[in-house]
C-alpha cells in the first residue's frame, strides 16, 4: 500500500507553504470562536436569563453570541486567501512534478501507454487540490468545532469535558485504523474501475474485428469479468465504510448518554447545576455530535480519496535513482562515424535487430538506407543518435566512442527527424527555432525557402501565427516540412531523416532532400521511396543477414534484394512513367 508514500509526497509539497497553513489555522481558530462559546452563552442565556426570569440577561447573552458570529465570519473571510496560498502552490508544484516525471518516463521509453496515463495524472492532481481544499475547509472546520466544543465543555464543567475528550480520542484512534482499511479497499475500487475501461476500450474500438472473429461471447465475458470484479470491490468497500458508524457512536453519542444517565447522581452530589447539565447537553448534542459525525463521515471519505489519489500520484512521480554521471564529456573534433560489429537486440532473449554491422560514414557523405520493413533501419538511426545503445561492437564519432561524447554536444551535432513530425502548441517561429533559439529572421527565411515551407507559412499567417495544441491545422506533410526546416536551421552536422519525408509528394521530397544534401555536413536518409536512394552518394541495403554498401549502379548489379526493391518500388508491370523513378535524380 502506498499510504505512507502518498503522505510523504503531500508533506514534501506542503512544507514550503507552512506559513500559509499557520495563518489558515489561526483564522480558522477565530472562525471557531462562536462554536467555542455558543454552549456557554446559550447556557447562560437559559440559566441566568430566561429561567431566572431576567430576559435582558438572556437576550444580552444571545446578542453577544451574535457579535461573536460576526467575528467568526471575519475569520471565514480571512481564512480563504490563506487557503488559496496553501492549495494553489500545492497544485502548481504537483503539476510540475507530474509533468516532469511523466515526460522523463516517456523519454526513457518506459511509458508505453502513451497519453492515457498522462491525462489521468493531471486529473488526479486536480483531485488532490479539490480534496485538500475540502479537507482544509471542512474537516478543519469540524476539527476546530470539535476542539472548541470540548473547550466550551471544559469551561462549563471539567468533569464532562474530560470524560468526553477521552471518548473522542478513543474514537479518533479507532477511526485512524479504519482509514487504512478504507484506503486499501477504495484503491481496489479505483484500479478495477480503470480496468473496466482498459478491457472495454480495445473491444469497443475493435468492434469490427471482434465481430469478424465471431468472438462476441469471449469479448463480453472478458469485459464482464472486469465489470463484476469492480462491483465486488465496491461492496467490500461499502462493508468497511459501515464500520465508521460504531466509531461515531463512541465519540459522539456515548458522551451524551453518559451525561444524561449520570445526571441524577451529578445533581444530587452538587457536582453540576441544572444549567450546566442543560448547557453540556446542548454542546454535546448540537455541537459535538454533528462535528464528530462530519469529521468521521466527510473527513473519512476525503481522507480515503486523498490517500488513494496521493498513492497513485506518488507512483507517477517516483523517479528512479539518477544514473551516475558517466565519463560522457568528450567533444570529438570531426563527425566521421564508424561502426564496427555493432549488434543490437531489444532484450536478451530476442533475436538481434541489427547484427554485426560494420559501416563508415565519413563527414559530408549523403547516405541512403534501404531495406524491407522491420529490418532495423530505424534502429540504426537510434544507434547513431544514442537513443539506443549497442550490446556489442564499437560505434565512434570523430574517433571517440559515442558512449563518451558529451550529451549536449551530441544533441547539438546530430539531428534526427522521425516519421512522426513533432509540432507543438506555440508560434510557427517557436517551432522553427526549437533547436536554434537565436536564429535571425534571415536564417528563418533561408531555411523555409530551402525545404519548401513558404506556402504553408503564408497560409498559417507568418512566423508569429499560433499553432494550436495537437497541430490540428496542419497536414501530416506540413508537419514534416516544419520539422525539416527546424533541423535545417540547426547547427547539426549529421542529419538523419528517418522516413521524414514520407507524407510529402515526390517532388516536395526531392526538393527537401536536395536542400539537405547541399547543406554542410552528413546526411543519412532512411528511404521511404527508391528515388531517395538514387539521389544519394552511397546506398546501404539492409536485409538483416548481409548489409551491402555501394552506389545505386553498383548495387543494382551486386544486390538482388536491391534490384528487387527497385523493381518493386518502380511498380512491376506498370509502365515506368508512373513509378516516381521519373523524378529527376541527382540534378545537382
Amino acid at each position: 500500500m502506498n499510504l505512507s508514500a502518498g503522505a510523504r509526497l503531500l508533506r514534501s509539497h506542503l512544507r514550503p507553504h507552512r506559513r500559509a497553513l499557520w495563518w489558515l489555522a489561526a483564522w480558522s481558530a477565530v472562525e471557531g470562536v462562536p462554536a467555542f462559546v455558543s454552549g456557554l452563552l446559550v447556557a447562560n442565556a437559559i440559566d441566568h436569563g430566561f429561567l431566572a426570569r431576567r430576559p435582558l440577561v438572556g437576550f444580552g447573552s444571545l446578542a453577544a453570541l451574535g457579535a461573536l458570529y460576526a467575528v467568526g465570519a471575519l475569520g471565514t473571510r480571512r481564512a480563504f486567501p490563506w487557503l488559496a496560498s496553501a492549495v494553489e502552490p500545492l497544485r502548481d508544484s504537483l503539476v510540475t512534478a507530474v509533468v516532469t516525471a511523466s515526460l522523463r518516463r516517456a523519454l526513457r521509453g518506459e511509458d508505453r501507454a502513451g497519453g492515457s496515463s498522462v491525462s489521468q495524472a493531471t486529473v488526479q492532481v486536480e483531485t488532490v487540490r479539490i480534496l485538500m481544499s475540502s479537507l482544509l475547509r471542512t474537516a478543519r472546520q469540524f476539527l476546530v468545532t470539535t476542539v472548541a466544543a470540548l473547550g466550551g465543555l471544559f469551561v462549563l464543567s471539567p468533569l464532562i469535558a474530560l470524560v468526553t475528550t477521552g471518548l473522542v480520542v478513543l474514537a479518533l484512534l479507532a477511526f485512524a485504523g479504519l482509514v487504512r482499511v478504507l484506503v486499501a479497499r477504495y484503491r481496489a475500487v479505483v484500479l478495477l474501475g480503470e480496468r473496466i475501461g482498459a478491457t472495454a476500450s480495445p473491444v469497443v474500438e475493435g468492434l469490427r474485428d471482434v465481430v469478424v472473429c465471431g468472438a462476441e461471447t469471449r469479448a463480453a465475458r472478458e469485459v464482464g469479468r472486469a465489470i463484476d470484479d469492480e462491483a465486488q470491490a465496491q461492496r467490500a468497500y461499502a462493508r468497511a465504510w459501515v464500520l465508521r458508524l460504531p466509531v461515531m457512536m463512541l465519540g459522539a453519542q456515548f458522551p451524551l448518554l453518559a451525561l444524561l444517565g449520570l445526571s441524577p447522581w451529578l445533581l444530587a452530589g452538587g457536582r453540576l447545576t441544572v444549567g450546566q447539565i442543560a448547557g453540556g447537553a446542548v454542546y454535546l448534542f448540537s455541537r459535538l455530535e454533528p462535528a464528530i459525525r462530519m469529521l468521521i463521515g466527510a473527513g473519512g471519505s476525503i481522507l480515503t480519496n486523498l490517500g488513494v489519489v496521493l498513492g497513485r500520484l506518488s507512483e507517477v512521480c517516483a523517479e528512479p535513482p539518477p544514473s551516475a554521471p558517466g565519463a560522457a564529456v568528450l567533444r570529438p573534433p570531426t563527425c566521421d562515424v564508424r561502426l564496427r560489429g555493432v549488434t543490437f537486440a531489444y532484450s536478451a532473449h530476442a533475436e538481434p535487430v541489427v547484427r554485426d554491422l560494420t559501416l563508415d560514414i565519413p563527414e559530408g557523405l549523403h547516405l541512403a538506407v534501404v531495406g524491407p520493413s522491420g529490418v532495423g533501419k530505424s534502429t540504426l538511426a537510434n544507434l547513431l543518435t544514442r537513443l539506443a545503445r549497442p550490446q556489442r561492437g564499437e560505434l565512434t564519432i570523430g574517433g571517440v566512442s559515442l558512449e563518451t561524447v558529451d550529451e549536449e554536444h551530441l544533441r547539438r551535432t546530430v539531428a534526427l527527424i522521425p516519421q512522426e513530425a513533432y509540432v507543438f502548441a506555440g508560434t510557427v517561429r517557436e517551432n522553427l527555432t526549437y533547436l536554434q533559439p537565436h536564429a535571425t529572421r534571415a536564417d528563418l527565411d533561408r531555411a523555409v525557402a530551402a525545404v519548401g515551407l513558404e506556402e504553408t507559412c503564408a497560409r498559417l499567417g507568418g512566423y508569429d501565427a499560433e499553432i494550436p495544441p495537437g497541430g490540428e491545422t496542419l497536414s501530416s506533410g506540413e508537419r514534416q516540412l516544419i520539422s525539416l526546416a527546424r533541423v535545417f536551421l540547426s547547427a547539426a552536422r549529421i542529419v538523419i531523416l528517418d522516413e521524414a519525408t514520407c507524407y510529402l509528394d515526390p517532388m516536395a521530397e526531392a526538393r527537401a532532400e536536395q536542400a539537405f544534401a547541399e547543406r554542410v555536413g552528413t546526411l543519412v536518409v532512411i528511404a521511404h521511396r527508391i528515388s531517395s536512394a538514387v539521389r544519394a552518394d552511397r546506398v546501404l541495403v539492409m536485409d538483416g543477414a548481409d548489409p551491402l554498401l555501394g552506389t545505386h549502379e553498383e548495387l543494382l548489379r551486386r544486390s538482388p534484394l536491391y534490384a528487387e526493391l527497385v523493381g518493386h518500388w518502380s511498380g512491376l508491370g506498370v509502365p515506368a512513367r508512373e513509378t516516381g523513378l521519373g523524378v529527376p535524380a541527382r540534378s545537382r
Partner: protein
Amino acid sequence: MAPQLPAGTLRAAGSRVLRQAVRQHPFLVLLFTVVTGVGAVTTVLMPRVVAAAIDAATTGTNVTGALAQLAALLAIATAASALDDLIGSYYGTMLTAGFRHRLLGRALALGVPGLRRFPAGDLLSRITVNAGTPAMVLPMLLSATATLSVTLGAVVSLALIDLRLAVTLLLGVPPSVALLRLFVATAAQPFVRYQELLAAITTRLLDAHRGVRTIRAGGTAEREIGRILQPVPELHEVGRQGWVVQGRASWQLALLVPVVQLLVLSVGGYALVAGQITAGQLVAAASYAGLALGSMGLLDTLVSLLSCQVGAGRVGEVLEAVPAAPAPASPVAVPPGYGRLELRNISVRMDDRPVLDHLYLAVPAGRSVAIVGRSGTGKSVLVSLIGRLADPDEGQVLLDGVPVAEIEPAALRRTVTYAFERPALLGATIHDMIAYGRPAASRAEVEAAAAVAQADRFIRLLPKGYDTPLAQAPMSGGEMQRLGLARAILARARVIVLDDATSSLDTATEAKVARALARVLAGRTSVVVAHRAMTAARADLVAWLDGGRVRALAPHSALWSDPGYRAVFGAADDTGAGEIAVRDVSGMPAALQVGVRR
C-alpha cells in the same frame, strides 16, 4: 459525432431506464425506501427525545425511561444508517454492473453499423460513466425526499413548540437561498477558464509524448517541461480568483445561518420567560432551526436529478437501438460449397447519397477477385456486405447459393473472414491476438499463420516473442497489418476478404505475403480491395467499381489497356507508397505512434 436525439426524447428514454432501474430489484428498493424513511423519522424525532431526556435529567423525573427512549432511538438511527449504506451499495453495484453488461452486449449486437450511430469513444463513456447514473437516482430521490420531510418535520416541530418560532425561521430562508444562487452564478466564471488552462497543460503534455523521439534526439527535455508548464502562472491566478469568490459567499453564509438560529432562540427565550415553553423545548428549537437550515443543499440535488435523467437517457438510447443487421428468425446452416459469391441488385445509401446502385457481381468459387475503384466508390462497403458487417438497403448477397442474411450468424463468421487496413489489437499477447477468433489454436498453428503473413520474423525479435504482451510491443502500421493477416489466415475460412490489408507493407514484403497467401488460400475464395496495380495484377479477376456499379469484371491484363482503368491507379501510384502510408499511420492509435519500432 453521433446524431444526438433531441433533449426531450433523451429525457423520455432516461425516464424509461430509470423506471426499469426501480423495477429491477423490487425487494431491495422497498427495503431501501423503508430504511431511508426510518432514518428520516429518527432524525426528526431526535431533538424531541433529547429535549425530553434533558428535561427529565434536570427535573429528575423518570430519567431511566427518557434515557432508554433516547438510547433506543440512537440505536435505531445507527442501524438504519448502516443498512442504508449496505443496501445502497448492493443495489447500486448490481444495477450498474447489470447496465454495463447489457450496454456491452448491445454494442456487440449492434455491430459495425452501430458504430456509425455510437462512435467507440462515445460508447465507452456510456459504459464506464453513464451506466452508473441510474443507480444514483434512487438514493438521490430518497435522500431528497428524506431531507424535504426532515425540513418539513423540523418546521412543523418548531410550530408545535411555538408557532412564532416557525415563522421566524421561514423569514430567514429566502435570503439564504438567494445567496446560494448568486454564488453558483459568480463561481462559474473563473471555473470555466480554470478548466481550459488545465486542459491546455494536458494537451501540451500529450503533444510532447507524441514527439518523444524528436525531444530525445534534440536533448530538449528541460525546455519541453518549461513549455508544457507555461499556463501554470495563469492557472494559479485564476485558481486564486475562484477562492476569492468562494470566500465571499462563505462568510456571508457563515453569518446568515447562525443569525437566523439566534433569532429563533431569542423568540424561544422570550417564550421561555413567558412560561410558554420549557428549557428542553428551547434546546430542541435550536436543533430544529439548524436542521431546517441545513436542507438548503436540496436545490443542488434537484439539479443533479435532472442531469441523471440525461445520463440514464444515454444508456437507454443504446439499449433501445435496433441492430441494422438483425439475426435471421429461422437461421439455416452454411450450405456445402467452395465459396461462390453472388451480389444481386445491391443498393446502399449513406447520408442519403447512393454508394452502391443496383450492383451485380458474381465471384466464382475458389478464385481471387480484386475490387478496384477510385476512392469513395464504395469498395469497403461492398466487401462489408459479404460477411454481413452491414446489410444492403436493397438486394441480396448469396454465399454458395444461400442468402447470407439467412445463415446462422456464428457459422457465417467461421465461413467468411476479414483482414483490415488497421486491424484492432485484441487479446493479451501477440499469440492471443492472432488466435483471437480461435482461442484453442496451437502455438504451431499460430506460428504457421504468422509465417504466411511474413510476421514470424519480427514477432521473434520482440522481447518475449509470441508471448509479448501487446501493450509492450509497439508496432508499425505494416507490422500490425501482418498480425491482422495472420489472424485471418488462422481462421481457415471459406471466403477471405482483404480490405486494403497490405497497404502499409513495402512492396517487397507485400509480394512475399501475396506469394505465401496464394499457396495457403488455394481453392478458397478471396476478395481483395486493391489500391496498387500490382495487387490487382495478382488476382484472377478484377471487379472495377465505378458509379456504384461494376463497370467491368476481367483480368487485370485485359483491363490495363483502358486509360480510364489505369487512371484509377494513377493517383495512388504517382505518389508511390507515400500516399498509402498516409492512410496507414494517421489511423494508428497514438500509443503506437510514440514508439514506432522498425
